[in-house]
């Protein structure tokens, strides 16, 4: 990387080495968490392919994202024909239960009106053959992949929730944060632990981390059933993890509350002891049960291990980066174990991060260039964030603990644990071991007992 130490340049205009991806990617991920759904991007072919490739590099799973494949003609005359053909073709090859459509910046700039198109389609009498469509506006010039994700989840609830549904309510709806399939599986297990009926929305725990196929499976099994979303107005309660949520005023949770009167809780991610305690207190309240024995065991092992390892990490200085909710949660946990966070960097620019972390050095709407510059002359022992921090980690000569998205230079991105007591312990093991490995390598004696 260019030696920033000898340069004194204002960095205000361009983005170098982004700490974010674009909004439709987040929407594509959300739609992959719905049972039988296929994601369709309205715009150029490249958006779908790039997003597929990027998601595949993390999840290592087949991940089909279709495109309405704009040409110059559609850019001039509108993408209606392409949209209709795409829906018909998807229906034919995938027989989806749902098509999740996200617009790209091209379609947004053109002012494509999908609601109008869909209305036209239903008038043409063609609609009964076609699966239901949920659409979300994801212009890449507004926000990051985290915003696209939260907006898509909101649209799923807004457009599918049906107060007249005859089906039974889905119990407690847990809205999924941007975490790994392994963490999502843990979240579902918590519901079972507390004897709570409920569902995760969306849920890519199986769709993006599944087993081998005996036969070709165009849409991988798993995901939140459509019936669950339709019955959302009859949910007992919802829990929405995140203190930032892309800065959105309206989220899936607030829609359930304001439109259908479903009560809910918005809590910081359950990362670390206190945040998990707060989370499980809500579970206790909803279920009328105390913390189940299994989770109690996880909690004691976590605390015991934090004590065992505390001297390795005590007083260390770390920089964290990634989505705003991720870095907010990480910062909370690191404070619990005595690691000082010297910089908190995110490509997200909701404005809420600095409010969530009033004492921290927050670099929001920032990139890796900003972070590197900010760390000049600052002592830092450790980086925590996604694979994109590798260059910086190399430049600074400090270890990178890989969490979040994307992780494409290590194996197992789909199985990274963060949430709950067991998640925090898995993260703590990673942190302690990264520090020990670094010390062992750096130390001429190469101690073999730590």
């Amino acid at each position, binding site marked *: 990387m260019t030696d920033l130490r000898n340069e004194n340049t*204002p960095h205000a205009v*361009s983005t170098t080495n982004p700490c974010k991806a674009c909004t439709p990617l987040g929407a594509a991920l959300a739609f992959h968490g719905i049972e039988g759904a296929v994601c369709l991007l309205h715009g*150029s072919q490249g958006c779908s392919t790039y997003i597929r*490739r990027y998601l595949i590099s993390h999840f290592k799973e087949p991940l089909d994202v279709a495109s309405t494949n*704009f040409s110059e003609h559609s850019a001039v005359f509108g993408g209606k024909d392409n949209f209709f053909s795409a829906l018909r*073709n998807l229906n034919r090859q995938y027989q989806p239960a749902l098509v999740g459509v996200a617009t790209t910046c091209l379609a947004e700039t053109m002012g494509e009106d999908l609601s109008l198109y869909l209305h036209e389609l239903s008038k043409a009498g063609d609609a009964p053959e076609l699966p239901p469509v949920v659409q979300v506006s994801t212009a890449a*010039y507004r926000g990051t992949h985290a915003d696209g994700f939260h907006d898509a989840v909101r649209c799923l609830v807004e457009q599918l929730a049906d107060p007249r549904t005859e089906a039974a309510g889905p119990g407690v709806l847990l809205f999924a944060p941007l975490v790994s399939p392994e963490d999502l599986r843990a979240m579902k297990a918590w519901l079972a632990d507390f004897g709570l009926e409920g569902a995760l929305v969306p849920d890519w725990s199986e769709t993006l981390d599944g087993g081998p*196929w005996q036969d*070709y499976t165009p849409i991988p099994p798993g995901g939140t059933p459509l019936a669950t979303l339709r019955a959302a107005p009859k949910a007992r309660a919802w829990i929405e993890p995140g203190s930032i949520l892309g800065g959105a005023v309206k989220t899936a949770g607030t829609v359930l509350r304001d439109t259908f009167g479903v009560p809910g809780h918005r809590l910081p991610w359950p990362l670390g002891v206190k945040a998990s305690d707060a989370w499980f207190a809500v579970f206790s309240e909803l279920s009328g049960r105390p913390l189940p024995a299994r989770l109690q065991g996880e909690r004691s092992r976590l605390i015991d291990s934090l004590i065992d390892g505390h001297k390795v990490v005590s007083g260390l200085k770390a920089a964290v980066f990634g989505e705003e909710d991720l870095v907010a949660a990480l910062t909370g946990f690191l404070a619990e174990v005595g690691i000082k966070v010297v910089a908190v960097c995110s490509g997200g620019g909701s404005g809420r991060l600095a409010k969530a972390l009033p004492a921290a050095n927050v670099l929001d709407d920032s990139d890796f260039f900003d972070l590197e510059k900010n760390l000049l002359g600052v002592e830092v022992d450790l980086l925590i964030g996604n694979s994109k921090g590798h260059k910086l980690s190399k430049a600074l000569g400090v270890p990178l603990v890989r969490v979040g998205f994307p992780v494409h230079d290590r194996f197992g991105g789909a199985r990274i644990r963060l949430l709950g007591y067991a998640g925090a312990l898995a993260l703590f093991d990673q942190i302690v071991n990264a520090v020990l490995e670094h010390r062992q390598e750096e130390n001429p004696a190469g101690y073999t007992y730590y």
Partner: protein
Amino acid sequence: MDILKERTAQIGRAGIGAASVSCGKASTAGSVSQRACVFCGSRVVLYPIADAIHLVHGPIGCAAYTWDIRGSLSSGPQLHRLSFSTDLREMDVIHGGEKKLALALDELITLHRPQGAFVYSTCIVGLIGDDVEAVCRKASEKYGIPVLPVHSEGFKGTKKDGYAAACHALMKLVGTADVTGVSKLSINILGEFNLAGEAWILKEYYRRLGIEVVSVLTGDGRVDEIRRAHGASLNLVQCSGSMTTLAKMMEQKYGVPYKRVSYFGLEDMAHALYQAAEFFADEPRVLEAARTLVKTELKELLPVLAQARAKLAGKRAAVYVGGGFKAISLIKALRHLGIATVVVGSQTGSPEDYETLKQISDPGTVILDDSNPVELARYCRETGADVFLGGVKERPLAYKLGLAFVDHNHERKVPLAGFVGMANFAKEVEETVLSPVWGLR
């Protein structure tokens, strides 16, 4: 599984009298094409130029997804491995992005002092009508380096049009520097991107032939080398889909003839060397050196291949890659391992490529243009393929279906070009096909 009716003409079979495979069309809406877009075509071709700024003008996605995406190595500067974007926001879209682009060029050129800059237009830049040419011209005058617009708006055609846009940008560099001292025995290597150091292997071969390589376009590329490319006597074009446009323009403007070559597999690699030797026929020592080189290399390689073949004979392969010419080489290379290709296709193959594929493939081989996962899965199953040769997007599909996989895309870390590349290829095929994991399914 249904095949879309719009796509039937792009699916064919090898064999005498079989119908031609239609190609060169825009992808079908709703078909999950493995192709990317115009921008992608331009970005991959220019990406390896290591001493230039590659500034993506648009919202963040296009820059984010192409950051450090290729395994193109540089022996010096590493600017190509950084991601630069104007990261356009809503207000820029409303008021126009020219000012932001100019300021971005100012700060990036001041900070990194590149030898040149490429500015890629993305979809919405084409729509909001920024005068990217004018901004680039001004920056070029201000800093005294070439600042080249690349007209790569995603919707303006297919990936192939992106290749052409990149070639047009390169053509503005070619011919702008002095070529005194360039040997008569000299070539450019076009369409070679130095993945895993492949360009270095080839350069060494040509050095052994006594041939000077003026520039590689664009592997381990440097702006100044490209400026002198017109001084070479011959262009050897690999990855013809991407670089033939440039070769043709150079032939027309500078009288540099070109030949189409491939560096994958035994015959094609040897043929590439002999083609150069034939061109420089009035220097018989080149042909002599080529013969010696091929003989020496084969002596080492053939026993390796014989060993692999003994273990792999009878297996079946599916090949789906970016360009058609590469697919042809791979079929031949696989034959040396005793592997028959039962499915073959490409994202951007030309009519000539598909004709050749029809002729050299075993009768009945499925031939696909601009395919999608549904078709790939269907034909892999139908033909009983054991191993898939493709890229990142095909890999998880192959694994889910229980097929071994060889990465023949731009992320690979092992050189597959040249004679040494063929040995690596054999090893990689062997490692994946014969892995015990397949028995666990």
